[in-house]
């Protein structure tokens, strides 16, 4: 058999397989049930705005808080990781490995329920605020590695030039290295933000007041109460809303990476 014939056969069989799967699904699934469950717009008509006004708003707020606080924590961890003092390096490594090794949900639950008891202080937002602290701890661990890589990607000559001008190591870091490092890591940091947006959904496992629920929590409540109860359409809608936020960001990252590659 000729090589081209064999390839045509292989392609043909893949199309046949796809057709078979579509046919089987088409005939065996109860499409009206699927539609009733996931795309039942009837009930959602009355309360979809809860998803946006409460859910999306809080998701964005929690992401912003976790990202900002996580970034500060991550810079500190990255500088510790690059420190000349061994104990700092060791502490940062242990921290990062610890929180990256745990499921984020475990940290969020542990902080949400444990923090106010263990430290005798209720952060603003109560259990949810404490859960958010857990998310910050996780975000910091992930972003620390990104920032460390960014700092190390700044050429050594930059530090040498700065130190030669009499700038201290702190001034060199602040004015010369970090500004350049952040330019390098804007794309990966944006990726971290996309992960963080999705991870805020883990806060749905933590008790929240009606007004402080994030998107997943609102959608889940709508499955069991209100006009769209009994269907999963609110979750479909939540999924669409997540994509509305995350897809532009991932496209932005791809665009920035392409631009950076060209600049090099």
């Amino acid at each position: 058999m000729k090589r081209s014939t064999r390839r045509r056969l292989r392609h043909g069989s893949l199309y046949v397989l796809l057709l078979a799967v579509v046919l089987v699904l088409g005939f065996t699934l109860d499409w009206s049930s699927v539609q009733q469950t996931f795309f039942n717009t009837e009930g959602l008509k009355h309360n979809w705005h809860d998803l946006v006004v409460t859910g999306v708003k809080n998701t964005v707020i929690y992401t912003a808080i976790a990202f900002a606080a996580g970034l500060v924590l991550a810079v500190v961890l990255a500088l510790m990781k690059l420190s000349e003092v061994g104990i700092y390096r060791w502490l940062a490594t242990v921290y990062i490995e610890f929180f990256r090794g745990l499921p984020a949900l475990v940290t969020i639950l542990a902080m949400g329920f444990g923090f106010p008891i263990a430290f005798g202080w209720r952060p603003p937002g109560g259990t949810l605020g404490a859960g958010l602290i857990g998310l910050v701890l996780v975000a910091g661990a992930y972003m620390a590695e990104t920032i460390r890589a960014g700092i190390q990607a700044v050429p050594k000559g930059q530090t040498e030039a700065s130190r030669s001008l009499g700038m201290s190591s702190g001034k060199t870091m602040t004015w010369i290295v970090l500004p350049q490092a952040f330019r390098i890591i804007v794309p990966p940091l944006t990726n971290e933000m996309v992960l963080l947006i999705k991870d805020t959904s883990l806060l749905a496992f933590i008790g929240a007041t009606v007004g402080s629920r994030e998107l997943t929590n609102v959608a889940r409540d709508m499955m069991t109460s209100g006009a769209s109860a009994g269907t999963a359409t609110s979750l479909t809608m939540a999924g669409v809303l997540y994509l509305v936020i995350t897809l532009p960001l991932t496209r932005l990252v791809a665009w920035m990476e392409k631009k950076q590659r060209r600049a090099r």
Partner: protein
Amino acid sequence: MSALSTEQPAAGVPAIQVSDLHKYFGDNEVLKGIDFHVDNGEVVCVIGPSGSGKSTLLRCVNLLEAPTSGRILVEGIDVTDPETDVDEVRARIGMVFQQFNLFPHMTVLKNLCIAQQKVLKRGKAEAVEVARANLAKVGLADREGAYPAHLSGGQQQRVAIARALSMNPDMMLFDEPTSALDPELVGDVLAIMKDLAAEGMTMMVVTHEMGFAREVGDKLVFMDGGVIVEEGDPREVLGNPQHQRTQAFLSKVL
């Protein structure tokens, strides 16, 4: 700041005094006991094959490399003494690198101002004034708003020299300042260095430009294998090298 740093260097104290300097990279001994000095106002050129330790010697003077043992006095201050404020000493030593090392995220003007403001605590107006004067000196007054990426290599190196000069240093270190430049751009940079020398700037120059060493240098140092093989008047060393290793090296480069 150490008490020493506020004292004026006594007359007759060399700008740079290096004694019994050893430097290891791991097990590799790069400098094997260097004794050498640069007097005030003197231009000392250091030549030698790659791997001879000449750049390492230069980088030890402002502690970009930490000496393994030995003493380095800059204007009489022991920079290897842990008590010495290295930043304060470095601010008085201008350094020019082979790869220019301009700050790419800042304009030319900002490159010249940042250390003036952050180290010397000059006000913005004063820093800008000093920066502009030095840019004019290197012939780039019209490029103060440009970013380094938009300058040629020769222009970048001239900005780097102006940046170092903006700190009003007592001496300048040059680490192969023209080695990364296209041949047609070398002349501009050398001309500026020559002007500096004529103004009486104390200079230590690691270079492959034998013409510059002969014409501008007060002293020539030939290094090989981590030791100073020969030093003296540039015309003497270049014209009539005494040591066989110097002869071998010069026969290849001249």
